[in-house]
């Protein structure tokens, strides 16, 4: 079957908020932009099913400074205040541009309310804004691999159009990876597509990663269906015998989730929402309709009956790791290859902590906006170079190094889930357990890397499996090599801060994984971009 071959100034890979803001930004610079997404731009990813709040501080220097100083300590020295300031600035100036496409409401005091937006409407609006800006959107066009020039810079990407059942390739002067983070197939709402595809493609092209050890974080949900968490913050918790559990409140952040995880390791845990704010009950459906449905359809009265809860892993989505950013343009260590949103490391803004939803959304918007504009500038300066020779960089799952043989992909995904999501392995890390995890993950990786050659539609799942394994190996190896406890990364066998740990831990490589601490300066400015 014949394929689809296109050219663009900027190719954006991904379909969530970072990808769409990036495409819009590039198009508004005058670039010809193609956006390819694995799913559908509007429903893909974790923002579409959520309701992101954006870090939102008015442009008053005193207020901005205070907000930054308040948040900085939780980064444990790994964030950069200059990036925090940038994120506040770009978010404040950019988000209101969505007004023609999103019905920003008034808040209680009659002011237009910008920072919090509902997922399905937000992504529907971003799709409309992107189309109106001239972006060509290709839904259900998963990228499988990057194309690389002989000088090592990025030349485009190739993939498989899964509804049309044909190959596609796009040559472009710049590529933005915005495929989201990796939740290790935890079942977290919206995260099925978040398998770390961009991390894998970037690493194959030679990009480095950073902060992958900050990947152990969970969200509370009913046990049978991952939802958003609005109704649960006032919850009491009980064990199977009806004894109330002593759980520190959500404001205690880590202690809250750790106590829940400990209790869940002992047995089922039940939530009781009878003390939720009374005014929330009649209005929950108007705020978060999709949170109500799993209860009504299960026949559980949300605020009246106790129900079993579970923690769903967020991996690097609310964790912070991702592709390393080496300049003010959100460029990776590969020339012409930019990273945005959860695909990029968010350490620049939140360091070793999650940062919660609002800095994360502000980062996705800002990094997308910056990367898109920078990609447009680069393409304008150097052209598309569509006639230059380029090689496909994809390996595991596409181009095995050994004899082609069947590989148990489902088993490999189960291995990732077992090693990355179990509460004790993730929240109380120890050297022996990490080493054992790494051995199992390495074995699964080796099988895929040596033997798997997928064809047609099967390529999509094969690459997801490879990406899940790659992200799991980087997270585990980084957790092993950061021999201390810092922010989200908790080593039960090394409970204190270490001397070298005040730097970001870089990681990369596929068959051979390496780590090294970033230069003590901890600045993005001075790094040489390869090629």
């Amino acid at each position: 079957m014949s394929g689809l071959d296109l050219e663009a100034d900027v190719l954006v890979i991904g379909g969530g908020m970072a990808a769409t803001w990036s495409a819009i930004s590039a198009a508004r610079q005058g670039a010809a932009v193609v956006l390819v997404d694995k799913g559908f731009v509007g429903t893909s990813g974790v923002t579409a099913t959520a309701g992101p709040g954006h870090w939102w501080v008015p442009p008053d220097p005193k207020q901005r400074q205070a907000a930054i100083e308040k948040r900085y300590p939780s980064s444990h020295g790994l964030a950069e205040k200059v990036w925090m300031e940038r994120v506040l600035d770009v978010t404040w100036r950019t988000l209101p541009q969505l007004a023609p496409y999103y019905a920003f409401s008034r808040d209680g005091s009659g002011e237009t309310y910008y920072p919090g937006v509902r997922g399905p409407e937000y992504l529907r609006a971003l799709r409309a804004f992107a189309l109106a800006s001239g972006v060509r959107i290709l839904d259900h066009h998963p990228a499988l691999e990057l194309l690389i020039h002989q000088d090592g810079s990025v030349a485009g990407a190739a993939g498989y159009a899964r509804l049309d059942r044909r190959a596609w390739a796009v040559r472009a002067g710049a590529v933005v990876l915005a495929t989201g983070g990796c939740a290790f197939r935890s079942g977290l709402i919206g995260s099925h597509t978040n398998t770390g595809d961009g991390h894998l493609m970037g690493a194959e092209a030679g990009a480095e990663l950073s902060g992958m050890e900050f990947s152990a974080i969970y969200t509370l949900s009913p046990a049978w269906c991952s939802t958003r968490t609005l109704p649960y913050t006032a919850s009491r918790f009980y064990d199977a015998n009806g004894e109330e559990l002593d759980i520190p409140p959500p404001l205690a952040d880590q202690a809250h989730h750790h106590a829940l995880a400990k209790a869940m390791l002992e047995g089922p845990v039940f939530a009781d929402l009878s003390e939720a704010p009374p005014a929330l009950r009649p209005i929950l459906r108007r705020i978060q309709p999709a949170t109500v449905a799993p209860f009504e359809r299960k026949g559980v009265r949300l605020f009246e009956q106790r129900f079993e809860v579970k923690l769903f892993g967020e991996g690097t989505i609310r964790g912070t790791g991702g592709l390393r950013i080496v300049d003010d343009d959100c460029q990776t260590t590969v020339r012409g290859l930019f990273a945005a949103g959860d695909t990029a490391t968010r350490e620049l803004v939140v360091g070793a902590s999650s940062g919660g939803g609002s800095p994360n959304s502000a980062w996705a918007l800002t990094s997308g906006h910056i990367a898109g504009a920078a990609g447009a500038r680069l393409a304008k300066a150097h052209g598309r170079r569509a006639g230059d020779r380029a090689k496909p960089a994809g390996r595991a799952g596409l181009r095995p190094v050994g004899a082609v043989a069947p590989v148990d992909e489902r088993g490999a995904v189960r291995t990732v889930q077992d090693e990355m999501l179990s509460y004790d392995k993730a929240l109380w890390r120890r050297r022996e357990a990490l080493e054992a995890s790494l051995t199992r993950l390495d074995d699964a990786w080796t099988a895929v890397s040596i033997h798997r050659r997928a064809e047609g539609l099967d390529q999509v799942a094969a690459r997801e499996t490879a990406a899940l394994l790659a992200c799991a190996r980087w997270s585990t190896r980084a957790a092993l090599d950061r021999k201390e406890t810092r922010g989200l990364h908790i080593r039960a066998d090394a409970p204190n801060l270490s001397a070298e740990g005040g730097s970001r831990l870089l990681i990369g490589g596929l068959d051979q994984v390496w780590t090294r601490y970033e230069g003590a300066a901890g600045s993005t400015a001075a790094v040489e971009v390869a090629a």
Partner: protein
Amino acid sequence: MIAHIFEDLCDGCNTCVSACPTHVFDASPTGGAPIIARLDQCQTCFMCELYCASNAIYVGPDQAGPEIVDPGAIRASGVLGQMRRDHLWDAPQGDLAPLAEYWQLGPFLQEGAHISARRYALKHASAKPSEP
């Protein structure tokens, strides 16, 4: 997981085929209602229901595995179209009603968190032994 497509309600527009972010559906080769081709990829996100203007899709509440449902009972329950009605997606363009209450999410999250924090503080204050 997605449990049922009501073929008599479906107009064959295939919007769900493209709106599903995880490629659960295939368009029917003979026209008509799409086929649930990859149930194992369903993440129970309800997006197909939200995008279905014909209210022809029912997603069950359990994400862990397939659910056997009674289509007649679902139809009679009035739940079809609930996701679209609750999101007010059939409101006229420019209507502010669908998102009018959304700003209250943050304050409610905070209020709930403070309820828990006060309760916890009170419990641990009263449990503390009195000063000698």
